[in-house]
């Protein structure tokens, strides 16, 4: 009879394996940290030279979890410029990312439409896009700081410049490749160009555009950490660097995890929007 029992669903089995991997990894991490030597075994000389003080080392996961609990139970405290809750730091980063990102979308999507609908503009703008696209967004930082003058705005500009390309290119590609039949449907129904754009081209190209938007938000979140390490002041990137300067590796590891979690949430949101505009032919 046991051979006939139904195997657990794939979903459940995958969760079991995931949890097992987590437990193993955390266990290995915990075990691989050498224990601090007890003060009793030290000579007087060693004690005098500071040998009894705890050595800086990779903190064990238990310590990181304690830190996480501590931070997440009060994420929005504000005790001066160098001591803010993780919620506030992430909030600053999200503010910069979303501002730069939506400014980029506001430029990239209409411009992408133009490029996609006009072969002339496509050819005319293509060389600029090809040159500007591979530039590392941080390379813009000195110029941005000089021209804009404000470090906050410069960080937003860096996000703007890095998230514009995938959206621009995908919008242009999606718009240029809308099926001719659907355009003909619009034409035989005497839709004007604005109506054609909104009733036919935008929904037809939406899955491609959303793919570009999803790639862009991922890049923006990658870049903000580096940008904030440079401009400083606030934000999750600054927080990581600041905790490194404080030699607080527990906080560094905790904030690395938080960067991952926020990135995952952003991607999941755009993934959901992408599924909503997806259509089957």
């Amino acid at each position, binding site marked *: 009879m046991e051979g006939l029992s139904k195997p657990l669903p794939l979903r459940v089995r995958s969760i079991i394996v995931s949890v097992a991997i987590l437990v193993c990894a955390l266990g290995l991490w915990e075990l691989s940290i050498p224990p601090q030597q007890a003060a009793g075994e030290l000579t007087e000389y060693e004690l005098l030279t500071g040998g009894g003080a705890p050595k800086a080392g990779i903190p064990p996961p238990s310590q990181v979890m304690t830190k996480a609990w501590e931070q997440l139970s009060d994420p929005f405290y504000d005790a001066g410029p160098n001591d803010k809750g993780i919620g506030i730091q992430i909030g600053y980063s999200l503010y910069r990312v979303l501002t730069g990102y939506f400014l980029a979308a506001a430029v990239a999507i209409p411009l992408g439409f133009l490029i996609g609908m006009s072969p002339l503009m496509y050819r005319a703008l293509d060389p600029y896009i090809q040159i500007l696209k591979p530039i590392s967004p941080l390379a813009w930082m000195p110029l941005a700081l000089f021209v804009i003058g404000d470090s906050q705005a410069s960080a937003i500009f860096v996000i703007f410049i890095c998230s514009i390309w995938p959206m621009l290119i995908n919008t242009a590609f999606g718009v240029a490749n809308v099926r001719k039949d659907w355009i*003909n*449907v619009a034409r*035989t129904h005497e*839709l004007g160009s604005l109506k054609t754009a909104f009733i036919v081209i935008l*929904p037809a190209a939406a899955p491609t555009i959303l793919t570009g938007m999803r790639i862009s938000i991922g890049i923006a979140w990658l870049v903000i950490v580096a940008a904030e390490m440079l401009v400083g002041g606030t934000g999750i990137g600054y927080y990581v660097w600041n905790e490194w300067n404080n030699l607080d590796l527990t906080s560094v590891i905790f904030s690395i995890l938080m960067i991952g979690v926020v990135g995952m949430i952003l991607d999941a949101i755009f993934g959901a929007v992408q599924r909503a505009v997806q259509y089957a032919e």
Partner: protein
Amino acid sequence: MAKSFLSIEGLAKRFPAPSGGGGPLTVFEDVSFSIEKGEFVCIIGHSGCGKSTIMNVLAGLDEATEGGVIMNGKEVRGPSLDRGVVFQNYSLLPWLSALKNVTFAVKARHKNWSREEVLAHSYKYLEMVGLSGGAELRKPSQLSGGMRQRVSIARAFAIQPELLLLDEPFGALDALTRGTIQDELLKIWRGTNQTVFMITHDVDEAIYLADRILLMTNGPEARVAESVEVGIPRPRSRDEIVEHPHYYKVRNHLVHFLARRSKELAGTKSTAPGGKPETVRFGAEDGEEPARPSIYAINQ
């Protein structure tokens, strides 16, 4: 003849010589025919003779190199809601439900209608093609090929165009579904008295549906060589139509044309004045058999 509802005059489509060498290509030329109001006309020809191009020119989606199309005394320039098109691949917008595919067309036609008027009008046409009871709320991808073509036909009829253009509308459907939708098409056509111009590859379909069948010679340099009057009274029924004395005469004539004469006539010039196709009519007194034995072999 200038008073015809639709008149096609000296249409030609040529492509310039390709850069790799070779001469310019003439797909078709001297295509002239006319269609009266309320007529159901089918056009038959082999692939590559430019049937679809002619249809696209009528729809205003494509431009002919020479000649022109006059509908209701006005030259056809660009697409218009006066000419409804049913495309071969249905061309429904896949992100809209069947109902919304129709309402968007109705809204384009009647810009000042209220939501209720648009909905009522759309439902009327969807019910006419047998799409109701929840199926109209599905996306095209969730509908069968036959259902999709029904939506496409409902959309075209719902805008009440003066001329309905059908490009091989039943090509991708199985024989049973095809029969049902043909009947529905005839029913709506009789009810609305619209003018229909349809491309088909199917000889039996053309005889069953059309008042007149235009025959095209093979491309390149194709032309409309003949205009065959079916002459079988309506309403026609699928089983009785074959009993009619004209049925096999018309059918054999069409099959013979497609099997042999379309090739023989390819590239020849029309002898009729103005390039009009030769009218072929089978009268009751026309007793002799126009068919030849070879045709029956092809028919099997």
